[in-house]
């Protein structure tokens, strides 16, 4: 309801004072299977952060009100409904709603679809979450950026963690959703494991369809030929259902399970989450986030507003908004304090770097359009006293250790033995 109110108010505000306002389109899942785990938390994160920006309450260097004095007016759009709809709505955002920039998109398919549209319209676009590396590996863009690492990092980090912790395994089972995210995650982990654990044998390779909900059959398949390691990139409702159905059948006792992106289910599952599961968060997020003043501020801001701590999605949103803020303000300065064009903002963001609650973000890949960041992997342990799942044995990996160097495709980089990786 509040979102409607906001959106409508924006409508009328739009005409009022276009000079002092910066209109920002924010697109994420407000309905459908990705709303609970990714869309809505991210949008919630955006709301509190933008509010803080407009009040000038963010810590330095983010303490200018709004974007360099311009009041930020968000317009929210639902990402649910397929890539076709996204391309149309993106065009409407730019041409009809006259937004100055758009931050959004969780779905890789949506990202691939909207990027060329924004480019053709010469409008500024930040992809804040989606996983596929193809966007900047296959394409060249001037106006499109991604302010978070792509999915290669997640599975490389998992493999490196297993290596670093001396976890021995010779067989692996896989269960991933039957769409690009699932396929890519499986392939990346397979390749990475082959590099770090030569001779490891891949057994079952299950691909339940997205949103299946029923995993009894898959769990039987995983148990009928148990592997020492079981890899999965399931997320959201599917991941929660899988855990709820697999735990009573002792899957987690019979094999070491590793999840590439799972911290977003910890607050909800609580003691239903088995101990000893190794998981990542697609960055140093949530319980694995680094200690810093900025992180403390953000943690408090979010927790106070929503009575739960921020996980992957809101972190990815806030890091994109912080980057955008600095870029806009830099471009503004270069533009003699006047509102910058999309072109100028792009120039300012390209190759830049900034501090986020999750650590430093560097636009290092895709010649300055694709971010790399540090990440972390941890192991679940339920803390009865705090009544929450905690993560132990947390290990951080710096960006250059788990991301390919500029100009190298993630896949080739893994298969080539991580050439140029700096892990100190």
């Amino acid at each position: 309801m509040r979102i409607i109110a906001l959106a409508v108010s924006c409508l009328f505000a739009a005409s009022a004072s276009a000079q002092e306002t910066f209109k920002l389109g924010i697109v994420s899942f407000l309905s459908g299977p990705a709303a609970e785990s990714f869309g809505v938390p991210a949008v919630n994160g955006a709301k509190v952060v933008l509010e803080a920006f407009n009040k000038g309450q963010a810590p330095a260097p983010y303490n200018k009100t709004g974007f360099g004095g311009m009041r930020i007016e968000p317009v929210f759009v639902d990402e649910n409904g397929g890539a076709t709809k996204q391309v149309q709505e993106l065009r409407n955002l730019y041409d009809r709603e006259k937004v100055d920039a758009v931050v959004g998109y969780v779905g890789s398919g949506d990202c691939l679809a909207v990027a060329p549209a924004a480019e053709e319209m010469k409008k500024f676009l930040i992809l804040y979450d989606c996983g596929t590396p193809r966007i900047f590996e296959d394409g060249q863009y001037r106006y499109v950026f991604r302010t978070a690492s792509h999915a290669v990092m997640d599975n490389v980090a998992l493999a490196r963690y297993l290596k670093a912790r001396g976890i021995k395994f010779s067989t692996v089972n896989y269960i991933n959703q039957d769409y690009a995210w699932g396929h890519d995650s499986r392939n990346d982990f397979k390749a990475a494991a082959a590099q770090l654990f030569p001779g490891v044998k891949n057994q079952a390779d299950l691909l339940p369809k997205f949103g299946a909900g029923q995993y009894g059959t898959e769990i039987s398949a995983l148990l009928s030929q148990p592997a020492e390691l079981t890899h999965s990139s399931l997320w959201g409702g599917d991941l929660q259902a899988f855990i709820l159905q697999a735990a009573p059948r002792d899957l987690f006792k019979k094999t070491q399970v590793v999840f590439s992106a799972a911290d977003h289910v910890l607050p909800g599952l609580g003691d239903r989450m088995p101990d000893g599961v190794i998981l990542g968060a697609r960055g140093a997020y949530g319980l694995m986030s680094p200690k810093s003043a900025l992180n403390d501020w953000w943690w408090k801001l979010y927790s106070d507003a929503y009575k739960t701590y921020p996980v992957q999605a809101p972190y990815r949103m806030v890091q994109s908004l912080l980057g955008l803020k600095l870029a806009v303000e830099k471009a503004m300065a270069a533009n003699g304090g006047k509102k910058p064009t999309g072109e100028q903002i792009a120039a300012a963001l390209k190759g830049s770097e900034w501090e986020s609650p999750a650590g430093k973000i560097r636009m290092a890949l895709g010649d300055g359009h694709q971010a790399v960041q540090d990440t972390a992997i941890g192991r679940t342990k339920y803390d009865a006293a705090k009544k929450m799942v905690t993560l132990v044995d947390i290990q951080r990996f710096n960006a250059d250790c788990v991301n390919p160097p500029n100009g190298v495709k993630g896949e080739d980089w893994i298969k080539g033995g991580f050439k140029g990786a700096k892990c100190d």
Partner: protein
Amino acid sequence: MKKTAAMGLAVLAALLAGGLLAPKWLLFLVTMSAANGLVSLGIVLMMRGGVVSFGQGLVFAAGGYAAALVSNKLGVSDALLLAAAGGGAAVLLAAPFAPLLARYRGIFFAMLTLALSMVLYGVLMKSESLGGSDGFNMRRPTLLGFSIPDAWSGYALYALVVTIAVLLSTAARVYFDSARGLVALAIRENELRVEYLGASVRRVMALDFVLAAFLGGVGGALAVMALGHIEPQFSYWTTSGEFVFVSILAGHHSVAAVFAASLVLELVRSFSSAYFPNTWQLALGLFLLIVIRFLPKGLGSLFNRFSRQAAP
């Protein structure tokens, strides 16, 4: 027939002129709804024979993927060739099923077409070489050997799509008014009698299915050119559902109504998702219900009423 052609030309001229004045976002919306409208026009063509396909996503996707692949893999960039390729591919895919489907009616025809489109969806999701569920992007096409400057890309595509749409609709109108077209209407009313009058119901139905496939394929190709991206969603049942809705909203009386309906749907969807980000599906659903309730014979019935008053 001459009258129809003349009217088509007049409409086309008006649209091309109007496009110069319309805002960009509207231009794109019309482009998309015209492309989608062609698919629904195919359904209307079948509706006149009494069947409704719930799987036009099948030919929509076939046309789209064909055009995108021909462009990316074979390097053909001319929009007209790509549109033709889309239509052709859809026909090739649909033709083998035509004699089979010609035997089915009502819910069974709807469900069988749905099943076919979902099989294609499954195959596309699997084919990683085609980008799987993410699909892939397509370069902007050229037009008659000229590459389109960014500033004009919107209008150029709009012009292309409406031109093709108007041409095909004119052809459709001629077909509807032809002997075969009238027999199709008769089949809708009473197949048995048509057989007893010595005409083959199945042959008519089979041909209609193939023609609808062609329209759907061209629509898919044009949609991809406008979007610059294709994905298996093109063949998903909800996509087909929207095509059906448009043809029901239009009714089987008027060709123009199909494109009007398609535009109305796009407008409703786009404005509701802009202003009710949290409840746009609710808004869309209610809109559908109201239309089905209060326009049982579709927009076309209104159109016809006017035209009758005009020319008694």
